[in-house]
């Protein structure tokens, strides 16, 4: 029986792709209403879910608060059913911690943290199915989720993996190609400026080949950017076109202090806020926003 060839003579890979071809990417934004931002991405068979909360007050020890920037907290978790064999992963194990640290470094480079001093931004990523390129899928999902949450970013962060077989650089490796043991490189790029947010490789690769592999990964990341751009615009078209009865960020999550103001105080309300779950009995005239106002012109952001 012939061995498994990663790259055939005609230039086809195991799953029929060409050397520089990406797997099919499908993504959705705003999958969870209760989180500030969320996104789901499928890159081939790799499925990742990202959820973002923030910016909010620092949880836990206040000593960790940075006086001039926001703290970015990333957590990575891999489902027990994500690999071929069911494997129970304890929460603080080495791989999760390392991946969380890499995600944090990536997003600290992209998010404009100076705008939110003394606050915390949480990014939680969950891998539902791992078929190679998990770091890249996590970064792409987290980018969409951060965008969905409205946290200002310098640029998209698009990531892709790359490998090197038989003198050819391959882009977007699947699990079979990763398991074959060749060198693999993970690259996270900010496409508009071409700056690298994170570059990671722990294998042996001759420096003559590094340039080519890096270029293949960068080109793949730019292609991912084109796709994510389309996803964002499509999501916005859906928001504007469809009936959206859920109002924006006006719902307080828990409602411990339902505010009833007997008389209007000296503030301009301007239709900004929405009371909690109970319909307001008309007591707070300035605090109720009529449902038709979604998607209209934005009220002046102070």
């Amino acid at each position: 029986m012939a061995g498994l060839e990663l790259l055939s003579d005609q230039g086809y890979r195991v799953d029929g792709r060409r050397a520089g071809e990406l797997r099919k990417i499908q993504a959705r934004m705003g999958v969870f209403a209760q989180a500030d931002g969320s996104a789901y991405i499928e890159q081939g068979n790799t499925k990742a879910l990202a959820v973002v909360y923030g910016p909010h007050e620092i949880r836990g020890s206040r000593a960790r608060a940075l006086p001039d920037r926001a703290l970015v907290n990333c957590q990575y978790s891999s489902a027990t059913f994500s690999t071929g064999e069911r494997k129970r992963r304890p929460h603080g194990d080495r791989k999760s911690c390392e991946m969380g640290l890499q995600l944090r470094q990536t997003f600290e480079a992209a998010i404009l943290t100076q705008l939110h001093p003394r606050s915390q931004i949480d990014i939680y990523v969950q891998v539902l199915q791992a078929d190679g390129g998990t770091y890249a899928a996590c970064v792409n999902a987290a980018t969409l989720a951060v965008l969905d949450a409205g946290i200002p970013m310098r640029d998209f962060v698009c990531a892709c993996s790359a490998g090197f077989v038989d003198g050819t650089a391959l882009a977007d490796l699947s699990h079979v190609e990763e398991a074959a043991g060749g060198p693999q490189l993970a690259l996270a790029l900010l496409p508009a400026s071409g700056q690298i947010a994170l570059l990671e490789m722990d294998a042996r690769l001759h420096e003559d080949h590094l340039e080519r592999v890096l270029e293949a990964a960068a080109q793949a990341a730019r292609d991912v950017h084109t796709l994510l751009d389309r996803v964002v615009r499509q999501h916005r078209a859906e928001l504007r076109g469809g009936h959206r009865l859920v109002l924006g960020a006006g719902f307080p999550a828990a409602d411990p202090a339902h505010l009833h103001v007997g008389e209007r105080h000296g503030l301009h309300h301007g239709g900004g806020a929405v009371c909690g779950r109970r319909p307001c009995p008309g007591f707070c005239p300035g605090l109720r926003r009529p449902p038709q106002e979604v998607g209209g012109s934005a009220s002046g952001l102070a």
Partner: protein
Amino acid sequence: MAPPVRYCIPGERLCNLEEGSPGSGTYTRHGYIFSSLAGCLMKSSENGALPVVSVVRETESQLLPDVGAIVTCKVSSINSRFAKVHILYVGSMPLKNSFRGTIRKMSEQLKKTRLLVEIYKSFRPGDIVLAKVISLGDAQSNYLLTTAENELGVVVAHSESGIQMVPISWCEMQCPKTHTKEFRKVARVQPEFLQT
């Protein structure tokens, strides 16, 4: 109607620094203005000055209390030295997660009147208070707030019998049913916002 609104994504180059000045949702780099949010591009034309270029989202994102912002908060506990509050609204926007704040006794001193205000006579737990942020706080403390202005102070308060009180003067409120007076530091409401 209005010209088609341009939708931009983070990292998209909007214009030159000579053609506009950066507003909210943008950042500048190498003499150009880039977008930092996914939203609609807005150009506000000012008379004389450069137009302010900003990117606005349809759903407003979370606002953080900033120094000098007027916030609406609820008193959670009091002490002889300070009152701990939950910040609920920043300006007129509700917060999804409440922040913690502190109103200290020292900040109550009005320079004009030189009155040493007692916390117990200014707030009680459960009061809704309008305050201003004076500091984001350091490693040990939360947001520091003050009510040392005429327009700041208690807006809604309930008497010990649980009925909402009516303000009588800047330092007293009266319960309409039992007619007992209680001390509070009352916010002076602008006359045009009073419901008559």
